[in-house]
């Protein structure tokens, strides 16, 4: 009974965040535009060397996704801060972790959609051949997005009470994301190259462990972060 009530709260928050985002439009368009622009800039910076561009594709893709996602994380709490909605949200009785889980689900959907667009643009721009093991690549994208969104949603809640939240969020988030980013890049690079050395498996395991640890830790810590 309590669990089904919690699940309804999670769904309600995710629905509310996605609906407001869909209707405002500016947020998603801006996030995708930034991701594609970063990919383009990487392409220009690498020059005409096709092999160098392909080698850099995985790194460019994940960095573009990360920088764009930070905008999304900031926006997800901006909606709550406008007009004092965060107070109203905190006044509802019930488990605090449901607020975090709802926002995480919405951010995952948002960043996931952005990632799909950025990957498709990256494939064309960097002339990447889609490998036969593409389902595994999709798995890496999902695991990487989960890691980024989990910590991004968590630190955005922490930064939301600060006036300098736009600056504070990347400062808090980026160092913590180094293992996830490294694992995502290496696994993606290995899979795009055919995984001849069977490296991808170890990186995927690391990414999975990272996600589990931080999913649990952030759900447990959220209550202490969001309370004044």
């Amino acid at each position, binding site marked *: 009974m309590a669990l089904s*009530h919690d699940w309804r709260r999670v769904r309600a*928050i995710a629905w509310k965040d996605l609906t*407001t985002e869909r209707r405002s439009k500016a947020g998603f368009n801006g996030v995708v535009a930034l991701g594609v622009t970063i990919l383009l800039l990487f392409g220009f910076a690498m020059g005409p060397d096709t092999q160098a561009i392909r080698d850099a594709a995985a790194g460019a893709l994940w960095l573009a996704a990360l920088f764009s996602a930070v905008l999304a994380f900031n926006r997800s709490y901006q909606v709550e801060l406008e*007009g004092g*909605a965060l107070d109203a949200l905190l006044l*509802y*009785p019930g488990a605090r972790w449901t607020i975090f889980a709802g926002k995480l689900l919405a951010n995952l959907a948002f960043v996931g959609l952005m990632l799909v667009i950025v990957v498709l643009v990256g494939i064309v721009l960097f002339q990447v051949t889609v490998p036969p093991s593409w389902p595994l690549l999709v798995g890496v994208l999902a695991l990487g997005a989960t890691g980024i969104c989990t910590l991004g949603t968590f630190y955005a809640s922490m930064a939301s009470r600060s006036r300098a939240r736009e600056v504070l969020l990347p400062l808090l988030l980026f160092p913590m994301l180094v293992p996830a980013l490294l694992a995502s890049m290496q696994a993606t690079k290995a899979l795009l190259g055919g995984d001849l050395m069977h490296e991808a498996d170890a990186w995927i395991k690391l990414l999975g462990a990272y996600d589990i640890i931080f999913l649990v830790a952030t759900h447990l810590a959220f209550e202490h972060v969001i309370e004044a």
Partner: protein
Amino acid sequence: MAQPTSELAIDATGVARRFGTRWVLRGVSMQVRAGEAVGLLGANGSGKSTLLRIFGTLLRPSAGAVQVFGHDVATAADRVRTMLGFLAHTPGLYDDLTARENLRFAAAMLGLEGAHDAAANAALDRVGLSHASDERVRGFSAGMERRLAVARMLLARPRLLLLDEPYSNLDADGIAMMSEIISGVVRGGGAAVVVLHELAPAAGILDRTVTLREGRI
């Protein structure tokens, strides 16, 4: 007016709150009985809103203790929240949702099972917003936003109303509606603490007033 009972809706003892090095509340003790409506008065910066937020579990006191209907706001905050109707300065609504969607969201968060639409419609009707139920809040006037925030507060069927300047932005009808809502909750055995700058709109419904000066009563 309702007859206050011996049951304490709020029992605050020595409540203090500090922001940085500045003490906003300096040992406030006050009791509000069930069946009682109390006006909280004071100059700007006297600590009225801070005290209300502590009663409402939105802030923890730096010192002292507060119980709401026998439950401590610090250690049993979730239990306290089930009894509260809190109206803040700002409406706390989502501009890109319609009035009905805002209330359906609130109903889902409150766990009103399977009756979101019915509860939302009844609350909208109560505050006179049925005609605008499918309009986005972004186009609402400040008075309409206030009415919608009241509708959301009523969904929870609160026993204790904590209202921060509830009459602001309301027209004559709205002022009468607000007074009726406060009286209704108090008559039903609940209580109300109403932060006011001007006593006039609420004069007929308050049992007594308390004045805060520089963080003290």
